[in-house]
């Protein structure tokens, strides 16, 4: 099932892909504008592409976390490789989804990318420069060219009696395993040939070959105990045994077994006959060569063998874009690899994530000249270019995402990854382009702006919401607008709205806002507002006495604007309803103030409504005065002994009406 899927993916790679690759290569003119268009249209239309972008961003964030956790050391290759594999999983998933939608060309293109990425992963991330590269290449070839799942079910279904055609297919499968270097797999498959119905000679051959194939030594880079010299010795001994078996005629009479044994011995003629059978691509041939002739070559030496393979197969002039990238990767020429990848797959996703992995792996920080000296080869290590390249890709991809309607938050994590806080101004610029279409969206933007400390942006966004509230909601939204003005920290706007509420509205400000007003924006010029806030808070909380004190203090200090005086008094009449709120000369102060205000008001512009309000106030104040006098009178008349019963004897405030 698994392998079947892969082979289905991979088959078009071998047959169809070069054409599509070439077509894309000749037409591609990468530019930021096109990418933006691509991102806008493609992301929205296909949910699976969006999933691909989100999944990529999540792995990217993990890479950054690992990078920070290990800094200043590079992230160990094992971790980087596993992260790279995650990216490849998403690529394969994308292929699968593209196929499901019927877009086979793109599916081929991306399965090619997985193939190329896998090779780059070996060259730049997972392999060690001082250890053989072969084990990784064996995996690479096996993953992409394994046909076991297609052929094996047929073989199993036919049991011990294999038809001629199936036998041929089985042999092809065994050959491919031998070519790929997965000899243990090949040994397992041989058992299908050596069943009970097979001749005794065949059974003997199978047993002998199984032994040889299973015994083939393998170098395990992850196994620290296995030293290279030990491996070399084992390999030479094993190959000698193969040669001995061949020379002893152990497989005489069976051309297939003889050919396999010759291959194991590293015989050039046998290799040539493998090519002649048409079983093999140049990638496989190169690995075949390494498997049985040069199993210990280092990554930097690979190019020479690849060129030799291409020459042998007469393919030097027939290279495809994909092959060119592989050759660049063998040169460890990361710049060319990234350039070609960008040219072929016109999607910043690819080059960015690959370059980021190479950056995290830290080979960019290795002293390249020292390495060259130590290894004495002339491979060009141009890793120093990875940093600026990565930065460019980050900028491009991050800004592309930031322009997207719903994916924009993803852009942040990419721009954040730019070194030395270079992403901050870019994020700020992108922020300026974002218009919140709702209060909710604005809140989200403000929160992010707060995280980055973009004071001006917060101010801008809050101002925008504030003004739209004022424009759309009129006076009913004035307090809401005030809240946003306070959030914006814009004193001028705040003052204007407060003015609007006080003069044009009902002079009622919510307590929550008053708190905010007190704590946030008030300066000396807003002394009145400060006092007014205290007064309003006292009134709304039912602390009548505090309200009166605050009001009288405002009157004595003369901070109440004239035009507002009547409004403030009449809108807060509740404090005049309880005479016990007043003490000392409070009533006198207020009465004088009301009279003075009335006179001024008459002088300015006469308003019968206001006059009525003032008369009402006057009446209330007279009532309070009467009440105060009665209280005083009663206290003096009843004397000290009745003071204890004050609560019973004191006037109920309402009684003052009778006087």
């Amino acid at each position, binding site marked *: *099932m*698994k392998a079947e*899927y*892969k082979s289905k993916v991979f088959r078009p790679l071998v047959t169809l892909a070069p054409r599509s690759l070439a077509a894309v290569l000749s037409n591609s003119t990468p530019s930021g504008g096109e990418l933006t268009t691509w991102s806008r249209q493609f992301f929205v239309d*296909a*949910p*699976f592409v*969006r*999933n691909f972008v*989100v*999944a990529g*961003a*999540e*792995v990217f*964030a*993990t890479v950054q976390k690992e990078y920070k956790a290990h800094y200043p050391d590079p992230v160990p290759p094992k971790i980087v490789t*596993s992260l790279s*594999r*995650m990216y*490849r*999983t998403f690529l*394969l*998933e994308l292929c*699968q*989804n593209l196929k499901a939608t019927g877009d086979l060309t793109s599916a081929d293109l991306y399965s090619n990318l997985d193939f190329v990425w896998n090779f780059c992963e070996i060259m730049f991330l997972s392999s060690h420069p001082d250890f053989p590269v072969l084990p990784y290449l064996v995996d690479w070839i096996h*993953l992409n060219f394994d046909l076991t799942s297609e052929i094996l079910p047929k073989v199993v279904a036919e049991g011990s009696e294999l038809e001629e055609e199936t036998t041929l297919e089985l042999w092809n499968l065994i050959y491919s395993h031998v070519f790929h270097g997965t000899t243990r797999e090949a040994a397992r498959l041989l058992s299908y040939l050596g069943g009970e119905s097979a001749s005794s000679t065949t059974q003997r051959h199978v047993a002998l070959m199984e032994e040889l194939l299973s015994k083939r030594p393998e170098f395990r880079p992850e196994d620290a105990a296995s030293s290279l010299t030990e491996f070399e010795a084992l390999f030479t001994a094993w190959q000698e045994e193969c040669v001995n078996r061949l020379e002893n005629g152990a497989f005489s009479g069976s051309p297939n077994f003889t050919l396999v044994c010759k291959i194991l011995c590293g015989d050039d003629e046998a290799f040539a006959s493998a090519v002649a059978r048409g079983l093999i691509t140049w990638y496989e041939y190169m690995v075949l060569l390494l498997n049985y002739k040069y199993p210990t070559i280092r990554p930097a030496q690979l190019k020479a063998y690849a060129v030799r393979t291409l020459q042998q197969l007469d393919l030097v002039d027939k290279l495809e874009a994909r092959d060119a990238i592989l050759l660049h990767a063998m040169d460890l020429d990361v710049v060319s690899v990234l350039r070609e990848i960008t040219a072929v797959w016109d999607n910043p996703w690819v080059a960015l994530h690959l370059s980021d992995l190479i950056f995290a792996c830290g080979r960019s920080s290795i002293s390249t000249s020292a390495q060259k000296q130590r290894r004495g080869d002339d491979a060009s290590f141009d890793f120093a270019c990875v940093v600026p390249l990565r930065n460019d890709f980050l900028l491009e991809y991050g800004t592309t995402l930031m322009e997207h*309607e*719903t994916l924009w*938050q*993803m852009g942040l*994590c990419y721009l954040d990854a730019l070194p030395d806080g270079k992403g901050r101004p870019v994020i700020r610029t992108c922020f300026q382009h974002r218009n919140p*279409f*709702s*209060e*909710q*969206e604005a*809140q*989200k933007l403000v*929160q992010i702006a707060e995280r980055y400390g973009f004071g001006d942006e917060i101010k801008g966004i809050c101002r925008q919401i504030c003004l739209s509230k004022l*424009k*759309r*909601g*009129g006076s*009913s*939204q004035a*307090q*809401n607008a005030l*809240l946003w003005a*306070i*959030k914006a920290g814009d004193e001028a706007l705040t003052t204007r709205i407060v003015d609007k509420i006080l003069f044009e509205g009902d002079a*009622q400000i*919510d*307590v*929550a*806002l008053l*708190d*905010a007003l007190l*704590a*946030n924006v008030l300066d000396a010029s807003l002394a009145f507002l400060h006092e007014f806030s205290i007064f309003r808070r006292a009134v709304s*909380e039912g602390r009548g006495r505090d309200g009166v004190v605050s009001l009288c203090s405002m009157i004595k200090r003369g901070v109440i604007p004239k035009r507002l005086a009547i409004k403030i008094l009449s809108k807060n009449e509740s404090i005049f309803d309880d005479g016990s709120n007043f003490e000392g000369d409070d009533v006198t102060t207020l009465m004088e103030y009301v009279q003075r205000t009335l006179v001024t008001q008459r002088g300015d512009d006469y308003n019968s409504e206001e006059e009525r309000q003032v008369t009402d106030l006057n009446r209330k104040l007279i009532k309070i005065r009467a009440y105060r006098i009665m209280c005083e009178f009663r206290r003096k008349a009843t004397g000290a002994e009745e003071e204890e019963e004050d609560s019973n004897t004191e006037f109920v405030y309402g009684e003052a009406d009778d006087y």
Partner: protein
Amino acid sequence: MALNMSRAMLQAEFDYDHSNADHVFEHRTNSGLSFNNRENPAIKVHKPFTVTVQTGNNLGKVRWLQDNATQLIPDPHATEHLISTTCGQLKSDITLWKLSIVQDEYGKFNSQVNSLCTVESPADVTDVVAVTDEVFAVTTSQGSLSLYKCPRNEDDTFNRIEHTSTKHLHNLRSGSFECPCPARAVATNFSSLVSVGEDGSIHQSTATTNENVRSLDHADPLSIYCVDFVSRSEILTGNGGGQLKRWDLREPENKPVQILNPNFAMNNIYGVISLAVHPSQKHLVIAGYQSGCMDLYDLRGGSRCDPIANLASNEGSLSELYFHQINPDHFFSCSSSGQVCQWYPGHGSFNMQDGLMYTPDVNIEFLKRGLIFKQLNTSLFPVNSMNVSKHDRLISGGDSGVLFCTEISAQ
């Protein structure tokens, strides 16, 4: 413990190998098949599952389609339905999903989430509430309250969503100019619906016919962000200035019966974005703020009482809060910093408000023992919504587009 989709997936794929590529694909599919039940088939013990589905759109709200009026004993094998809505664009998709636990031939229980159908809402959906196990109400950014019904087939399955009715309720007026204003939240007591909006209005409608019963126009001078019922006819709202207001819908005046002001020093001018009312002690309320603060209030304290305790102050606004209905010592939160947390009594700490000691009439276990939490899911992107079902499953969704579903235990 159940991890974030990406995390769980990343863990699963950390030792990625092409030879098990199919296994990896199991975890992320568009059709939504995914599971991590890998127990020994011989031992048929139910283990908590976690399902993640990439939906390909920013998720605004996720809600179980269930009858919240009744309570059941949780059944780990029950099939349930849920509603998700998309956000971030001018219109929204409403999708009905089915979560089923299927036993395969080896006796293994696998959980699946499949999408059943999608309808488009002409405006961005701002809140969803399930009225019954077939009917749900949504509010939109165009100020409307709509009812949708998922008709049940004869074989007890669902396969479509029908739009029943829409009422435009929330408007802003400036002179002769009138425009729709976003409704922000909707709550139900199963006979009526209450919607609140950024215009500060509160509208009560019938849950069956969506007819307007009572309107409190511009009752709050600030935007109202959240609402919940605290009794049959009393609601609690949270506004943009951080105030909680209790309204009695029977009162003729458009005035709140109680106002609770936030702890200003901790909240500055952040709004209340989420509310959770204790299921058995309706006077206890947790308010979640945009600042990331989470305060516990006792409504019996009268107007202007301070919160009893500040339970937490994190980064990122607390998008939603939810009490476990059977064991309310456990509650859940999700936040714009990408976390979905389960809070429960344990050896932890929180700030009691000054001068307030634990009082025996507030019967909350975590006030006595302390409060701790575990993260059920973390995401790079804001988690906008979550919900807990009667069968102890939690779903969450956010700007990453991942629908995350996990089984919880509240013991």
